[in-house]
C-alpha cells in the first residue's frame, strides 16, 4: 500500500546544505522534511542547524516541536553514553587495562561538532588483541553479557572478524561493541593499526579510556563507511565525516596531518572516497592541494564510475519517498561490495549459504511455535 508518493525530493540534503531556504517551505515540504529526517536519524541534527530560524519565530510551533523533541532525546543519549563510559572506565580500572573509544562515543567525549544532535546506540571500543579475552571476562563480571548465540556465529566472530559479539548490560541494556581491529581479518584492506593509534590521547575524566586524534577519527569513520554493506545510516555517516573534516580544517596543518596519516596507515583510498563524496553530495569544498594530492586514487576507472553512481544514490534520505529501482540496485551492489571487502568469495559463499539455512530453520521454528501458542490460546 503506497501511502506516500515517491517524490525524489530529498529535503534532508537540501535543508542541510541550504538551511535558509526553510523559511519558504510550504506545509507539505515541512511534512516531508520531518518524515525524511526522522527516518534518516537527521531530525535532531537539522534541529540544531535550524534553531536560529526557530528562535526568530520563522518556524511554526507545531513543526518545530518535532525537531526540538528529537534534540532533547539526542542530548539524553549523550548523557547516557557518558554515564555508561564511566561504568566501563571503572570496570577497566579494576584490571588496569586500557581501551580506545571509537566513533560516536568518541565524538561526545571529545565534545566535537559531530556530536551535536547525533543519536547514539552502541559504544564502540578498541582493545589490544592479546587483552581481549581478559577484558571480555571482566566486562562480564561487571554485568555486560554476550547475547546468547549459536556456535557458528561465535566461531565466525572469533576466527574472522575484528570484533567479538556484542555485549549487553543485563540491567541497563546498554551495548558495547568491543573490537581488536578496525576491519575484519579476512578483509582485503590491510591497515597499519599502530600508526592510527599513534596520537591517541587519554580522556581526562576516564583515565582507562582514550580517543583517537581528529585525523585518525576521520580515517576511521571513512574506513567504516566505505567498507559498509548497509547504508540506511549512510547519509548520517557521510555528514559525520563532513563535520569532522570541517573541524579539522580549522586546525593548523589539519589537512596535511590527515594526508600524512592516510599514507602511513594505508588508508588513502577511503580518504579519497570520503573527500570525493563530501564534495559531490554535500557540496563541501577543499583546497586544491588536498584534492590533487591523491592522484593514484583519482584515476577515472570503470570501477570508480560505478562507485560514483551507486554512492550518489545511497547517500540520500533513508525514506520511502526517495525509493527507486536505481536506488535499490545501488544498495544491492554496495551490499555485495561490502561483503566481498570483508571476506573473499571462497569463504563468503559457504558463509552466506549457512546463514540463509539457519535463518530459514529459525523462521520455521518460530512459525510453528506461534501456531502452538495460538492453538493453546484458542482452547
Amino acid at each position, binding site marked *: 500500500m503506497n*501511502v506516500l508518493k515517491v517524490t525524489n525530493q530529498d529535503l534532508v540534503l537540501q535543508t542541510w546544505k541550504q538551511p535558509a531556504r526553510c523559511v519558504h517551505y510550504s506545509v507539505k515540504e515541512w*511534512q516531508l522534511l520531518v*518524515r525524511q529526517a*526522522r527516518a534518516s536519524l537527521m531530525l535532531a541534527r537539522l534541529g540544531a542547524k535550524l534553531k536560529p530560524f526557530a528562535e526568530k519565530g520563522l518556524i*511554526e510551533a507545531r*513543526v518545530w516541536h518535532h525537531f526540538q*523533541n528529537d534534540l532533547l532525546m539526542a542530548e*539524553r543519549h549523550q548523557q547516557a553514553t557518558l554515564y555508561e563510559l564511566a561504568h566501563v572506565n571503572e570496570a577497566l580500572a579494576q584490571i588496569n587495562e586500557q581501551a580506545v573509544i571509537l566513533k560516536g562515543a568518541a565524538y561526545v567525549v571529545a565534545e566535537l561538532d559531530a556530536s551535536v544532535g547525533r543519536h547514539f546506540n552502541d559504544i564502540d571500543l578498541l582493545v589490544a588483541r592479546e587483552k581481549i579475552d581478559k577484558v571480555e571476562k571482566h566486562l562480564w563480571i561487571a554485568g555486560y553479557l554476550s547475547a546468547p548465540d549459536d556456535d557458528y556465529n561465535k566461531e565466525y566472530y572469533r576466527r574472522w572478524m575484528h570484533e567479538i559479539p556484542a555485549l549487553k548490560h543485563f540491567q541497563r541494556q546498554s551495548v558495547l561493541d568491543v573490537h581488536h581491529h578496525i576491519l575484519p581479518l579476512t578483509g582485503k584492506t590491510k591497515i597499519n593499526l599502530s600508526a592510527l593509534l599513534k596520537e591517541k590521547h587519554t580522556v581526562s575524566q576516564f583515565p582507562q579510556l582514550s580517543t583517537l586524534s581528529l585525523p585518525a577519527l576521520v580515517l576511521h569513520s571513512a574506513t567504516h563507511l566505505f567498507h559498509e554493506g548497509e547504508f540506511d545510516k549512510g547519509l548520517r555517516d557521510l555528514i559525520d565525516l563532513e563535520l569532522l573534516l570541517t573541524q579539522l580544517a580549522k586546525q593548523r596543518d589539519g589537512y596535511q596531518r590527515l594526508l600524512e596519516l592516510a599514507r602511513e596507515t594505508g588508508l588513502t583510498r577511503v580518504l579519497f572516497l570520503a573527500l570525493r563524496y563530501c564534495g559531490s553530495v554535500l557540496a563541501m569544498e577543499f583546497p586544491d592541494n588536498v584534492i590533487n594530492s591523491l592522484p593514484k586514487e583519482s584515476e577515472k576507472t570503470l570501477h570508480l564510475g560505478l562507485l560514483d553512481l551507486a554512492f550518489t544514490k545511497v547517500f540520500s534520505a533513508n525514506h520511502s519517498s526517495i525509493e527507486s529501482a536505481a536506488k535499490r540496485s545501488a544498495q544491492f551492489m554496495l551490499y555485495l561490495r561490502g561483503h566481498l571487502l570483508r571476506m573473499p568469495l571462497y569463504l563468503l559463499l559457504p558463509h552466506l549459504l549457512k546463514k540463509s539455512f539457519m535463518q530459514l530453520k529459525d523462521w520455521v521454528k518460530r512459525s510453528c511455535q506461534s501456531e502452538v501458542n*495460538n492453538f493453546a490460546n484458542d482452547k
Partner: protein
Amino acid sequence: MQYLESLTKQQLTSQIQSDGIALKIGPFNFSIASDHSALVDFIGKLYGSYPLLDDSEFIDFNIRLLRASGLRRYFSPQVNFYLDDFSPFKPLGLGEARAMLEWGMNWCVGAHAHQYLIIHSAVVAKGDTLVILPGKPGAGKSTLCAALVGEGWRLFSDELALVDTNTLQVHPVVRPISLKNKSIDVITERYPQFEAASRIQTSSKGIVSHFPAPKESLALMSQPLAATHMVFPQFDSSAQCEISQVGQGEAMLSVIDDCFNYNPLGKKGFETLSHLMASIECYSLHYGDLDTALSFMESLVSNECIESD
C-alpha cells in the same frame, strides 16, 4: 469545520485505504491509514465527532496499520503498526488490530511529545476542578474514569495526562475510553448511554472494549486547564473504604514511576513535576464500591466552591 461523520462510508473507506484519514485529536494531528477493513468501521464509530483536517495542515503522526505480507497474509494473519516507515512493535493477530491502533497512538504521543510531561493516568474535570488519576495496573482507574464520565465529568483522557512544561496546564487528548474484562459490564449496566464500538479478545489483556468519548468533551478538546487535584485510586472489593490526604513529596515520588518521559526530560521533568505537585492536593482513595468513590470525587468539586467563598 468538517467532522469525520460527514463522510459517507465509501468516502471514509477509500480515504483510509489510500492516503489516510487526517484527524485533529487534542494537540495532535494524526493521519490514519490501513488496508484492513475492520478498522474502517471502528474508526467510523469512535472518531465520528472529531474534526477532519485538510491538506493544508501539518500532520504530526502518520500512522499505518498494515496486514503482514507473504504467507502471513493467509496463514494466521497478522497486522503491523507503522509510524511512517518505522514499526515499533511486534506484529499482533489481525483480531487485535483495533486495540493496536489505540495502543499505537498512545505510544506516538508518549515517545515523542516531550513538550509535555506525560503521566500515565486518567484525567477528568468538572468546572475548574481538574483531577489526575495515576494508573497503577489493576487499580481500577479506567473504570472510575468511565464512571465519572458517565456522571457528566469532562473527559480529558483515560490514559495520558499532558502537562505543558512551560505553562503547567493540562492539555486534553480526548480519545475513546477503553475498558477491560469485568469493568465493561459494570459500566454498561450502570450507564446505558455507553455503547461499545468493539469487543476484542487480546493476547495480553483479556477482553478490551472501546467507547466513544462524549461530544461535550470533544467540543472542548483544545481547552487546557490547570490541575487542582491528584487522586491515587485503588479498587479492592473486599476492603473498607479508606481515603487519606497524601503529602505532595510522597505523591511526587509515587507518580515519577508513572511518567512516560520523566527521564528524557531530565531537569525540566523534575521542575515541571515538582511545580505541579506543589500546586495541587493529593489523595489516596481505597474503595470497595463505585458510589463511595464517586461521592468523594464530587466532594473535591464542592471543596473548590467552598474555598472560593
